[in-house]
């Protein structure tokens, strides 16, 4: 039953002195939409703490779009930290929205952002704390509709029973279409089932309850998903794609938080999509095509937003900012705009060549913290396999340029467990790091005071849906440990080379959840019931609890994550598509095995991924790229 909409801040106010970081729960930030009159109420939820969720660009975009619609109000909610959750459960206080402090169960629509696979137990915790049934089929007629979207929606099947609807792709337009459709049908007295069928008619909206899982000889053990008999839902739901980024709001995040967040700065999305074609990268496939925002719009919006928000740093965000065809001119304009006000410009990632370093230098001004590159693989052979179109010469030139430009610390990001990887590829990681260190010493000097150092960070490949590696198995834990040991043994005994690696056990959970079909919900629910939440937090993650949950649910996590799928098998996620064709991904897989690279279509000709003809869009590049 729908809860009453009322301000319940008085329920959590007495708890504020008892918890860490009470500023997480205050609302009233500068730029927040205080006018929440509705009468149709939506709440966007990021199922992690405020400082992680607040900077999320996706939530900000949808918040602005909905609050600009007449008659619709949109608020935010985050999952409280464990101390607050304990106090709220002890006192039977339900989860509240931030702006009006109303119970989440009083809203018309709740929208979750699925940022990564390890957030899934937090989604269940959020619903439970809100007093809302975790399974869509258990919700009452007038309960909120629970929708979702975001990067992890590309294999949403393990959570399909939770969501009434899932939005695929860009959300600017589709969120308004969905919410106005729900509002109008609710007003007309339509049943919940009728509303869901109507939502399935909107392009890009997947309504899981209208589909069923089929396991047969053409599928993996996780099956594939088809519309239920008698339902007219589309067999494949394609993502929504905004054709031109210039038509969207350049600065989505206008709420200025009180407490320090993970990206505590003004963020402007300078381009969307990346066509570099790295074969492990899900974002590179699912956000296509590339759409650059024009320079003038970026500069004008940055100028206005800095004045309106008061930030002292602006980040040019995207998957590959230095690929923007106007990047050099843009940094020049922004430097003139911000130079004498103590405002910094930051780039989230550097292209691995001399141009990338030049751009980093232009953005950094006088500051020189560590410069980060992502070669991803140690050997040229393996970089060709993953289509990281970077040569050893590129890397060495970039490193030399970085040291000549004043940097002393270089970070190198790699992955382990890439297809065809051998021990020689692992050794090549430390060889490359040693070479970069040697270049630094040649340029800067060899004494301890030179301060030259190289850090290597090595993650484990998690094969994801809609990548050329979606058929691959993940590296077993024991083999990860052996290769990590090999990495350490191979490293030169030089304290200016530092090596770190991610927790392979968390990657194993991520890998299993990335592969499973609808049956995966039993695992997630069992893990949540045994106390798993905040799995992306090292302090909270319990691998043992996940193992126990898997055993209780009848699964073997390692077996699931490490399983290879046949290239021609029907996969659990093929009914929800970013429009990259399966044939293209199969071709990319074969080219990977042959060590053949594929060019970036924004620099060369079309590579036939299928996105543009399927969605009727194309790359939008402001000037010729170089």
């Amino acid at each position, binding site marked *: 039953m729908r809860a009453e909409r009322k301000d319940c801040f008085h329920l959590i*106010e*007495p708890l*504020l*002195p*008892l918890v860490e*970081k*009470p*500023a997480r729960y*205050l*609302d*009233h930030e*500068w730029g927040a939409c205080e006018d929440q009159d509705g009468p149709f109420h939506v709440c966007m939820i990021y199922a992690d703490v405020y400082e992680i969720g607040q900077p999320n660009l996706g939530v900000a975009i949808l918040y602005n779009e909905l609050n600009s619609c007449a008659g619709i109000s949109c608020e935010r909610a985050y999952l409280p930290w464990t101390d607050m959750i304990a106090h709220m459960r002890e006192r039977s206080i339900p989860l509240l929205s931030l702006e009006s402090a109303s119970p989440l169960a009083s809203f018309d629509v709740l929208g979750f952002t699925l940022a990564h696979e390890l957030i899934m137990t937090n989604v269940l915790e959020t619903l439970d704390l809100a007093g809302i049934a975790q399974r869509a089929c258990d919700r009452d007629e007038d309960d909120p509709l629970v929708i979702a979207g975001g990067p992890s929606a590309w294999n949403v099947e393990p959570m399909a029973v939770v969501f009434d609807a899932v939005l695929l792709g860009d959300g600017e337009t589709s969120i308004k279409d969905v919410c106005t459709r729900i509002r109008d049908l609710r007003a007309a007295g339509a049943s919940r089932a009728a509303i869901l069928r109507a939502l399935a008619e909107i392009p890009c909206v997947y309504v899981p309850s209208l589909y069923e899982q089929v396991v047969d000889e053409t599928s993996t053990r996780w099956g594939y998903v088809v519309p239920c008999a008698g339902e007219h839902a589309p067999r494949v739901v394609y993502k929504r794609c905004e054709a031109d980024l210039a038509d969207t709001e350049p600065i989505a995040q206008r709420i*200025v938080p*009180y*407490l*320090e967040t993970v990206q505590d700065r003004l963020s402007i999305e300078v381009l969307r999509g990346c066509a570099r074609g790295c074969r492990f990268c899900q974002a590179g496939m699912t956000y296509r095509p590339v759409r650059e925002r024009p320079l003038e719009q970026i500069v004008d919006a940055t100028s206005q937003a*800095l*004045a*309106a*928000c*008061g*930030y*002292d740093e602006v980040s040019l965000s995207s998957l590959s900012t230095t690929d923007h065809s106007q990047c050099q001119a843009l940094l020049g304009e922004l430097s003139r705009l911000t130079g*004498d*006000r*103590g405002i910094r410009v930051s780039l989230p990632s550097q292209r691995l060549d001399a141009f990338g370093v030049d751009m980093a230098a232009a953005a950094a001004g*006088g*500051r*020189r913290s560590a410069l980060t590159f992502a070669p991803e693989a140690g050997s040229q052979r393996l970089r060709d396999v993953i289509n990281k179109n970077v040569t050893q010469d590129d890397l060495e030139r970039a490193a030399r340029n970085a040291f000549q430009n004043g940097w002393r610390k270089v970070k190198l990001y790699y992955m382990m467990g890439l297809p065809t990887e051998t021990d020689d590829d692992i050794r090549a990681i430390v060889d490359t790091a040693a070479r970069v260190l040697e270049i630094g010493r040649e340029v800067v000097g060899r004494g301890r005071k030179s301060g030259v150092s190289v850090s290597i960070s090595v993650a484990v490949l998690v094969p994801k849906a809609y990548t050329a590696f979606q058929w691959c198995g993940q590296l077993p834990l024991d083999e990860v440990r052996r290769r990590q040991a090999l990495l350490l043994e191979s490293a030169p005994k030089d304290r200016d080379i530092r090596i770190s690696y991610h927790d392979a056990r968390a990657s194993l959970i991520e890998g299993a959840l990335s592969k499973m079909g609808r049956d995966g919900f039993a695992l997630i629910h069992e893990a949540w019931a045994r106390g798993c939440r905040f799995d992306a937090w090292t302090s909270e993650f319990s691998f043992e609890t996940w193992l126990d949950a898997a055993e209780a649910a009848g699964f073997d996590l390692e077996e699931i994550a490490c399983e290879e799928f046949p290239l021609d098998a029907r996969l659990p996620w093929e009914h929800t598509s970013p429009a990259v064709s399966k044939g293209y991904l199969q071709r990319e897989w074969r080219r990977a095995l042959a060590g053949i690279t594929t060019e970036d279509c924004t620099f060369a000709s079309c590579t036939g991924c299928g996105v543009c003809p399927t969605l009727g869009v194309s790359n939008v590049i402001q000037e010729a790229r170089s």
Partner: protein
Amino acid sequence: MNARLHRLRFEYPKSDRLAFLGHLELITTIGRSIRRAGLPFAVSSGFARRMKVQFSSALPVGVSSRAEYFDLFLTERLDADEVLERLIACSPAALSPRIARYVDESLPALEAWLDRSSWILDLGSSIDASAFDEGVARLRVQGAFSYMRGTMPKTVDVGESYVSHRLFEKHGSLMLALETLSLPSGAMRPEAFVRACAELSETPDALPAYLRCARTAQHHLDDGNLVEPFELSLPKLVD
């Protein structure tokens, strides 16, 4: 060559929900308000170029205030009331400044200079006034107390930090008006003082879990005399 800077002092409250901001959060929030107001603030030199601004001593999280202060160093001398108006328009209401006056640029840093604080605490309806007075007396005889600040033990010299106290009733609650002096070694937290007194009066459970506390005034103690924060203000300037 250093251009002359103009030191503008602001008084502002820390009220409502924003009493729960930590000191760093407060500094960041006010810094962003100043940037939004487009004021000609001075920026420090060096790689990390920061706004030149000084704040009075940190309040504990959850403690509100009627009288907080910050000094902003400006590169241009603007009308103080005009600056105040611009800053009010760009500040959260719960931190909205009330007074702005220029002060001498050579004054000591605010945090050290404003060393006397006045506080009001709501002790709730369960604690007995005479028992609490007894607790204060015992604590003063004891001379010091220790408490855990987070995970760190902290010892407070009551002899120097405690100045005076007064109890009175309001709406059925026992209210405490407390005067404290901050020392170079640190400031005494009013709540820690109250709980130490209640402990010594053997009535610790009579206090509420959350003690409402507000700072009501800050002064500089100069040879036994209290100096108002704006007492050394320059005459109001009108450009």
